[in-house]
């Protein structure tokens, strides 16, 4: 037997989802008429997800913030071209991903030593955490921006290959292949991860 939720619960979730979509659609329509508070509502709803998308693509927290701001700004300017029957989240995240890719390309020459200082770590020993973080940063820096984005979006954020393809504007097969190469590369560079983590 599978552990499916009761039908009543499924119905409630479905109704909540429908209500949520309707509320979002209302916000989008209001924002399209120039209602800034409605757009603020959309920012509230989507900024965390937008951040995680951007963060998967760029190398630092600051660049992710910039990408989120750029993304929302572009989305605001392009609101009149958004068709309300589309999923606003997917549309917005694609814009944020493009903004992040743009920033990542501009930062390509950055030295890995300048890389994130805002990364959190689950390790209690600061020295161990620092070492691991440095190794991870160095390993991630060896990946192409697309491969890095794919592995983070897939293994950290849980996006599917097709969703990643949509976000980054690449075929699903390319996302799949990038994921494979990124995993192989990180495993090679962080070979003794298990013994240290």
């Amino acid at each position: 037997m599978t552990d499916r939720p009761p039908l009543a619960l499924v119905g409630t979730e479905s109704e909540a989802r429908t209500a949520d979509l309707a509320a979002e659609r209302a916000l989008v329509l209001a924002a399209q008429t120039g209602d800034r508070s409605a757009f603020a509502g959309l920012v509230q709803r989507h900024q965390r997800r937008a951040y995680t998308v951007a963060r998967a693509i760029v190398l630092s927290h600051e660049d992710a913030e910039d990408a989120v701001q750029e993304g929302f700004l572009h989305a605001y300017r392009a609101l009149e071209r958004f068709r309300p029957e589309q999923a606003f989240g997917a549309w917005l995240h694609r814009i944020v991903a493009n903004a992040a890719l743009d920033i990542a390309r501009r930062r390509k020459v950055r030295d890995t030593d300048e890389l994130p200082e805002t990364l959190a770590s689950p390790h209690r020993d600061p020295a161990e955490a620092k070492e691991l973080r440095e190794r991870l940063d160095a390993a991630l820096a060896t990946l192409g921006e697309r491969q890095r984005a794919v592995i983070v979006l897939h293994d950290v954020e849980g996006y599917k290959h097709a969703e990643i393809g949509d976000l980054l504007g690449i075929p699903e097969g390319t996302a799949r292949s990038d994921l494979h190469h990124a995993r192989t590369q990180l495993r090679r560079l962080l070979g003794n991860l298990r013994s240290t983590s």
Partner: protein
Amino acid sequence: MKHGFKSDRSAGADPALSALLRSAYAPPAEDAYWERLEQRVLARLSDTPVTAWWNVLSEWRLIGAAAALLAVALTGATIVRELSNAQTSSEMAAGAVIESGFSVDEATLTARGRRLPPDAPERYLEPFGY
């Protein structure tokens, strides 16, 4: 997170690596951070008006309505004037015919067809010997 951590179960994922990546890429947890980010985003929008086509149209709607009313009024006036002119012309033509004193002879009024001369058949049968 919307997608949770289900991808740990996907083929090829290394749980240790995923955990490390997750910790490295964790978004800030404090609500205050997100409020500040939202304020920064909204501040950047402050000088970016949305100029949707329907907004432009709505600015012109009063002028458009007035122009449409004027056009309807002009068209109506033109139609009424043309009808009035046409009626006057008919009345004038009828009056002119009645008042002209033109006489028509009785034979013309009672004739049913074209009249032929009495010797017409002979002329048609023998045109050279007639």
